């Protein structure tokens, strides 16, 4: 059994650690800020994306479940946190209603809907951050895996799931603020969300969450269960014949992964200041897949790297070449797939060691509709 922190993981975590120390220090510690405040939140956002990518890589890279709906879990986590932040606004909203968020006052709600109850308590929101995506994943997975929905069929129904949720959350009747979502947050646990210290704090928390996510994912994939997952990925039916209840294994990782995505969403919301149904859009979920593919599927660290790379490229290019950046991004995707079949990480490591080509055979098998 390989150790939890192999070379690749070690280097990445070390880099993450340096960043975690350097960024807040650069932002807060020095008189003339080396790191502008907005960069702190920006980096924090990247780390949330990275955690989300790790979550997807766990199910896709190791278990062959190509979820095109992981954005939904992320968004649910984000909404759970957003609901708490809305409740924390209290009577500081525009209509000064102590209980109801502004959009509810405006839509003539008399009282909070039952599903908003409890979100005034931080601990409750934290539990919901895990439970909301977790339960959705569990129920969805329970049915889908038991019915042996696999391959593209599974991918497309996960897409249908997030798409349906998007449409539902767009509806004002749902009680989640419709298209505008939840926004205008003031503070969390009494810390002003617009203060630099809170930002730095959230950034550090995101880094810790990413590190924890990576280690948990690594622990899972390193265990015998990880091998079973790979077996499921490569030859699901064969795995059944030696007595593994494939659906239980899938359900386990799918749920764990969804919860991880939920945590990513929960950290994302206060850092970007808004959560809205756009996060449920199928295109968002596809983008997550793209981060993972670009970084290197089935490598965890690569997935995190891919997310950070794409997000950073988007930030930089939209500013540098607002009219051309899409071309650059598109070209990047094409280039990486054709010339870096193992993803960015594969190229970085390829300089040191070669990997067997059989990986491709299995990808072929599992994607055949």
């Amino acid at each position, binding site marked *: *059994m390989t150790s939890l922190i192999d070379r690749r993981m070690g280097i990445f975590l070390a880099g993450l650690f340096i960043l975690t120390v350097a960024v807040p220090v650069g932002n807060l510690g020095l008189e003339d800020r080396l790191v502008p405040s907005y960069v702190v939140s920006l980096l924090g956002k990247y780390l949330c994306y990275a955690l989300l990518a790790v979550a997807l890589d766990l199910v896709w890279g190791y278990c062959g479940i190509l979820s095109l709906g992981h954005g939904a879990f992320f968004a649910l986590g984000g909404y759970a946190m957003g609901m708490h932040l809305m409740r924390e606004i209290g009577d500081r909203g525009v209509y000064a209603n102590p209980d109801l968020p502004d959009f509810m006052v405006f839509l003539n709600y008399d009282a909070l809907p039952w599903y908003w109850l409890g979100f005034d308590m931080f601990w409750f929101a934290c539990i919901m951050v895990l439970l909301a995506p977790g339960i959705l994943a569990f129920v969805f997975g329970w049915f889908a895996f038991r019915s042996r929905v696999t391959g593209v069929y599974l991918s497309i129904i996960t897409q249908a799931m997030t798409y349906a949720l998007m449409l539902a959350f767009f509806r004002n009747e749902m009680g989640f603020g419709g298209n505008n979502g939840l926004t205008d947050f003031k503070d969390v646990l009494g810390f002003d969300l617009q203060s630099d210290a809170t930002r730095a704090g959230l950034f550090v928390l995101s880094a810790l969450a990413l590190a924890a996510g990576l280690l948990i994912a690594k622990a899972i994939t390193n265990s015998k*269960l990880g091998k079973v997952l*790979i077996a499921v990925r490569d*030859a699901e039916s*064969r795995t059944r014949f*030696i007595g593994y209840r494939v659906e239980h294994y899938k359900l386990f990782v799918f749920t764990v992964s969804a919860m991880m995505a939920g945590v990513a969403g929960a950290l994302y919301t206060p850092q970007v200041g808004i959560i809205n149904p756009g996060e449920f859009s199928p295109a968002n979920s596809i983008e997550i897949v793209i981060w993972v593919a670009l970084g290197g599927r089935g490598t965890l660290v690569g997935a995190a790297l891919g997310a950070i790379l794409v997000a950073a490229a988007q930030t930089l290019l939209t500013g540098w070449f607002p009219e051309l950046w899409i071309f650059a991004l598109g070209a990047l995707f094409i280039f990486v797939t054709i010339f870096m079949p193992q993803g960015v990480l594969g190229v970085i490591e390829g300089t040191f060691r070669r990997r*067997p080509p*059989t990986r491709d055979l299995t990808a072929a098998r599992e994607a055949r509709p």
Partner: protein
Amino acid sequence: MSIQLALDGVTRSFDGFKAINNLSLTVEKGELRAVIGPNGAGKTTMMDIITGKTRPDSGEVLWNQTVDLTRIDEAGSARLGIGRKFQKPTVFETQTVEDNIALALKDDRSVWATLFHRRSTEDTARITDLLELVKLTDHRTDMAGDLSHGQKQWLEIGMLLAQDPELLLVDEPAAGMTDAETMRTAELLRGIAGKHTVVVVEHDMDFVRALNCRVTVLHQGHVLAEGSLDHVSANDEVIEVYLGR
């Protein structure tokens, strides 16, 4: 001796074609049984039915005279103690030969158990023994996908043995093996019979002869003849549809 497996009046058709037709068959505990029959006679389908991969249209399949196997899925049958080697070798291609065996080792198959599983020294020893037995020691750390066809056959046999099942369903184990290896396989199976129940499908008559056991001939989804190899080979119909002149 008690009955390990009993098929009674099993029928299964595909688009109107009866692949298994009112098939009845019993296998005793510890017995070694060879099943032969023409291509398309339904041998593999029969195994599919026993292992829960295919549901019969009608008929009953009883395990130890109590459990109805038609209601149990693949994993369930494996957990009852039914192990299977496939006609077309299927192994976990992106995992090492060693891990393939390790995955098959008899153990608690629950999610939590595998998550917190640590490989014991006995496990390692058993893997080593099995690899030795199937002559894949040299390939221990190779990816299973890189093995040759015959090596995959052996690996599957290794995985089957690792499961330590009560009943072994072995579909064409000798295909693609040299004559010497074929004989060795026969010996191996004979060795484990008794403690385990073994059902073997083969077309190689030398192999079947070497098994020296009761033979069932399937034809068009039902039993055409049953008895010793000499007995069934003397059957005209068996010669006609299967052995050739």
